């Protein structure tokens, strides 16, 4: 069994997405556009893509930023022992039931404090190769998210996970993306612009 990378626990959830929180010290692992999963037992797990990572302020931080000098110690203390978590907004893109991946919205969202894991390459390949990029529509429906950037980041990461088939998979994904977005010039061009920057 490969090692499971835990990136946080669930803060709040809905059908279309959920928010996970973690300590600042854990923040080195998750990345924008990464695929995450929340195993809920009985062969059911929810998949999502991180589309936003944000850090809220609190009264103390507000005071500290205005002070003239912030020492290393204070900085470290405020980051690591803070009670405000780093929040990761995740877009629900599918779920797995009894070993079968569905690119549909999950029937039930994960519950509070469920552990959220980062998907490894194997998971990533398994999820992205199921069906014909059906999960793209969830990303495209997320009006608040920077769709182009999320897609570009995702395609880059998933492409890498495909190893030798990286080029072929990317080509297929881009073709699908263009097909879905051919009537939506601004979104498509922002996605392609982002893809052009990473490739």
């Amino acid at each position: 069994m490969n090692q499971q990378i835990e990136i946080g626990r669930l803060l709040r959830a809905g059908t279309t997405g959920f928010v996970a929180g973690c300590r600042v010290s854990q923040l080195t692992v998750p990345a924008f556009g990464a695929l995450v999963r929340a195993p809920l037992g009985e062969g059911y797990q929810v998949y999502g893509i991180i589309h936003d990572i944000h850090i809220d302020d609190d009264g103390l931080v507000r005071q500290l930023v205005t002070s003239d000098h912030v020492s290393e110690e204070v900085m470290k203390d405020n980051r690591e022992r803070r009670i405000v978590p780093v929040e990761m907004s995740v877009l629900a893109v599918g779920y797995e039931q009894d070993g079968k991946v569905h690119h549909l919205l999950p029937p039930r969202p994960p519950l509070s404090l469920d552990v959220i894991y980062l998907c490894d390459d194997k998971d990533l390949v398994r999820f992205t190769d199921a069906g014909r990029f059906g999960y793209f529509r969830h990303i495209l429906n997320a009006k608040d998210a920077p769709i182009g950037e999320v897609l570009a980041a995702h395609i880059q990461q998933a492409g890498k996970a495909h190893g030798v088939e990286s080029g072929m998979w990317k080509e297929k994904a881009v073709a699908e993306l263009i097909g879905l977005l051919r009537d939506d010039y601004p979104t498509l061009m922002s996605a392609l612009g982002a893809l052009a920057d990473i490739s």
Partner: protein
Amino acid sequence: MENKIIGYIVGGGLKESFRVRLTVDPLTVQEGAFVVIESGDYHFYGLVTDMQLGATDDRFADEKSDRLPAALAKALHGQTLYTNLEVLPALMLERGPDPASPEYDIWVKKIGDTVPHPIPVKTVPPHHSQVRMANEGDIAEIFGDPNVDGKFIIGYTREQGHPVCIDMEKFVQRSSGVFGATGTGKSFLTRLVLAGLMHYNKASVLVLDMHNEYGFDDVASDTKKAVTGLKTKFKSKIRVVGLGAGATIRGQVPDFNLEISTGDISTADIETLSRELNLKETTPTTLNALFGSFKNEWFARFKAMNRDEVEVEDEKGKMKRVPHPDSVAAWANDNGANVMAAEALHDKLRRLFGKPYIVEKPAADSVKNIIDALENGQHVVLSYGEHESDLDYLLVSNLLTRKIRAAWEKKTNEFRTHGKSEPRPLVIVVEEAHKLLNREMAAQTTFATIARELRKYYVTLLIVDQRPSQIYDEVMSQLGTRISGWLGDDLDIQAVLSGLSGRDALRGMLARLQPKEEVLLLGWGVPMPLPVKSRRYDDAFWKELLGGGGKKSEAQNLKELGF
């Protein structure tokens, strides 16, 4: 054999054209391409009338996306920028289910012995039906198999060079037309068609060859190359007739000469020359009076009249000038005609009086000779020799045609009522047809009657003209097969397309035909409109036409002719 798929149906309908999304390089398809839409049990046949560049969003087309990497740009263009074809639906044909499927046997039983024929398109293929270029088999299915007798290859499809035939049997049953602006290869096209008609030999052909182009060998007006005349190839099957005694055509002696007896000229013949001779409204009255006085001899007698006056002494002993007893004025006074009108007519007819081919007593009844030759299955090329003026052309063509039609009408009636032999179909080829068939003339000449009554009397027209817009609409609308070269004038294009469906779609195609190379086949005499690369009129053509299988039929023809 199967051609590759070039696209799929994305829209359109019967009123407008079908729209086809092209999936191959647009450069491989041209306007005028003959395409087949395969949909279930039916094949739809259509003609590409337009090609349009499209984009799912104009901005994809507007902006050159060179900031994207090549691979991305290519993927983007493949999906967001596209070419649509407009396909004019023409025919559909029931093909039945796949022969390998069990439904096929049921279908075969159901249709029995009836072979499905192409019918006009009455329904639409569903979305995403696949579209492919027509192959040789498809073209043979629609236009006929070139190996079958009576099918004449007029040209080849533009892209793939498949032979396209016209059905000679249908061609002679209805009046037809060959059009094209001057210098677009109309004469060569006419030669081709004439060669086909004469070789087919189910109808006699009378060519009113105003410019002496078709009988003997000629030199092409543009390339200065020698052009084989029809007489050279068909030899005794063609009689070349020169107008006027002793006429030579291109330095060669014709088979016989045509002289017109004054007794053959009717008053109606003169009336048709109204515009040419600038005749007044009083003319018919005067002509009637002339005919009343002299009957068939009117022309000769009128010609013989003088304009003299003589001095006579009246009862008071005074000298008085009065018209000569043989003068026009004297005749007019005696017969209650207007002297001024009669004299004016006499003046104007002087142009005819001086024609050497109009004689009182011709050496032979050459009009009858022509009719006999045509009845016996020979073809006649009437060359006007040096009498190339409009006046000669109008007078002789009208007169001859009137006589011929009367002869054929008589034969037809004999055939119908007394069961005599069936008249041989006759095709009269009319050069510069607008001179004879324009709006003013059409009502008076025999040509319009022939065009209108179609094949009732076994006589049809083949109109050759460069200004179809000048031809009377009623005649134009009766033309079954229209073969048109390039036309520039909007009115001409409109005239050629009159009475056809899909006019708008075909309009541009006519204007974009390549001069001397391409012609558009049109009209209800052909199964569907199609632009073709016209066949070359050269030695290879003659070899193909007369060589090989042609020999047998030629021998057979000669036998039929009684040689």
